[in-house]
């Protein structure tokens, strides 16, 4: 575990992250206000290509708003989101979104749901080619037997996997997951986490994910962003996960680094998430 200094601006962000891959997303001075009160303010961070970043915080700190701003579904009151050198002003096919409540269209089968997304990305593809892409990504979440079922015939976990397959199938530059496993039981959640980890390792996908689950964050994330409570929420800390990327759910808790990191995150959520020392920075 390592705690990164907070990024104050674009220049600082680049300097303090001498890591490997290029920056894909840069968030600068993001703020959202309803009326006069800011929900969150002065949110700065960067995402590197191939990185898996989780954002953790209590309800009401604006995590979903930040994710929706990255997706282009919402406009921030202040600040910018820059993806690949261009400012985000609208939703786009370069960013795949997995919604909290799967958001599958109930009148379409699994195959048709994913084909809908694939056809949006590549409108001039032939039917056969679209179907090939659909089958490939359905197989990736091991749902091939359910290809021609309607969402109402699937369990909650299966629906969420279809949602993930749909987001992956358009091969976006970056994936945004809004607490995708929140509604699932612990066993199902574990299986899908493993699956997600596997797919991300295979595709080197950049992922930004909201979660409430500290263990989930430690398992999946390369970096964990901790947000203080809203209103006036901020990114309080960015914790770097120094455990090897090959980490696995079954053996994770044997890693000597696991408990220090888990304790640190829990302590933050329980004790230190209350605001509001402006722009605090941990050396």
């Amino acid at each position, binding site marked *: 575990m390592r705690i990164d200094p907070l990024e104050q601006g674009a220049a600082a962000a680049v300097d303090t992250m001498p890591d490997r891959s290029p920056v894909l997303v840069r968030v600068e001075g993001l703020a959202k206000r309803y009326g006069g009160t800011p929900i969150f303010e002065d949110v700065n961070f960067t995402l590197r290509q191939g990185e898996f970043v989780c954002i953790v915080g209590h309800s009401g700190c604006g995590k979903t708003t930040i994710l929706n701003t990255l*997706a*282009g*579904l919402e406009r921030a009151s202040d600040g910018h989101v820059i993806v690949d050198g261009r400012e985000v002003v*609208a939703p786009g096919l370069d960013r795949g979104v997995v919604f909290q409540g799967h958001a599958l269209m109930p*009148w379409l089968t699994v195959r048709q749901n994913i084909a809908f997304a694939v056809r949006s990305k590549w409108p001039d593809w032939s039917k056969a080619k679209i179907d090939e892409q659909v089958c490939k990504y359905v197989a990736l979440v091991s749902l091939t037997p359910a290809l021609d079922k309607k*969402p*109402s015939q699937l369990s909650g976990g299966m629906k969420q996997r279809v949602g993930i397959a749909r987001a992956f199938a*358009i091969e976006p530059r970056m994936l945004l997951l809004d607490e995708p496993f929140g509604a699932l039981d612990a066993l199902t959640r574990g299986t899908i986490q493993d699956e997600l980890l596997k797919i991300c390792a295979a595709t080197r996908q950049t992922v930004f994910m909201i979660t409430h689950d500290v263990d989930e964050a430690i398992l999946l994330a390369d970096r964990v962003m901790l947000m203080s409570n809203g209103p006036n929420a901020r990114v309080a800390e960015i914790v770097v996960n120094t455990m090897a990327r090959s980490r696995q759910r079954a053996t994770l808790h044997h890693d000597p680094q696991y408990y220090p990191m888990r304790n640190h995150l829990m302590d933050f959520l329980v004790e230190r998430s209350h605001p509001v020392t402006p722009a605090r920075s941990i050396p």
Partner: protein
Amino acid sequence: MTSLNARAALLSLLLFGLLLGIWHLATMNAGAASLATVAAPAMTPEQIEYARLMGKPVPADAGASTSPVTTKSGFPTLAQMGATVVHHLADPFYDKGPNDKGIGLQLAYSLGRVALGYVLAALVAIPLGFAIGMSPLIHRALDPFIQVLKPISPLAWMPLALYTIKDSAASGIFVIFICSVWPMLINTAFGVAGVRKEWLNVARTLEVRPLRRALEVILPAAAPTILTGMRISMGIAWLVIVAAEMLVGGTGIGYFVWNEWNNLSLPNVVFAILVIGLVGMTLDGLFARAQKAVTYAD
């Protein structure tokens, strides 16, 4: 489940039998009463003439009083009713001039009018409902008009329609149009406005173009609600066509009912009423089936 169905069917049959029994008993008394009149003392020629004008049996007709011809002004017995049904069904499509057409032909006229007015209404109501459902501005701007126009009885438009269109057939179609437009319009707007935001967000993140979004996301999502509106509209249209044709005249099942009332032929009127009910049931059944086809489980 099957036993429930079987018991329900049995109960329905019993009720049907009961109704027929009541009908039989009631008309039997009427027959006896008319026989009593026949036995009345001799009438003066003036009285006979008056009785004939009033449709009552007169001594001269006494021999024929049991035949359907003379008792047709009274409520028919079951046997007369059966004969009427057979008579009409034997040749439903004959055409012997303006006041004498087969029941099938009359129905075809009515259904044609309903279909035309209804399709026109759908062509207006569904796109407009989409606009109202998608734009809060249009919704608020049009709402006062809809609220005022909706409760107007469709037949109240008839004089205006006759004056402006100057054609009774087109006026009938207009009345069907105006009565079926509202439920479709309101239900379409309601269904479109209620499309779940997450589906629209999916479409947005996939950069789906507006036309494709309307046809592939909003339409299927709102289809069950839209079809409910269409079903209500069809029900109302079938109610209104009878009244409209009574006013407009010429052809159609409504005109048939009114014409047979003027002929004092109650068996024909009863037969037409039954046919109206059966056709209405069939239409509703068709829409129920369509509704089932577009409904999705969530």
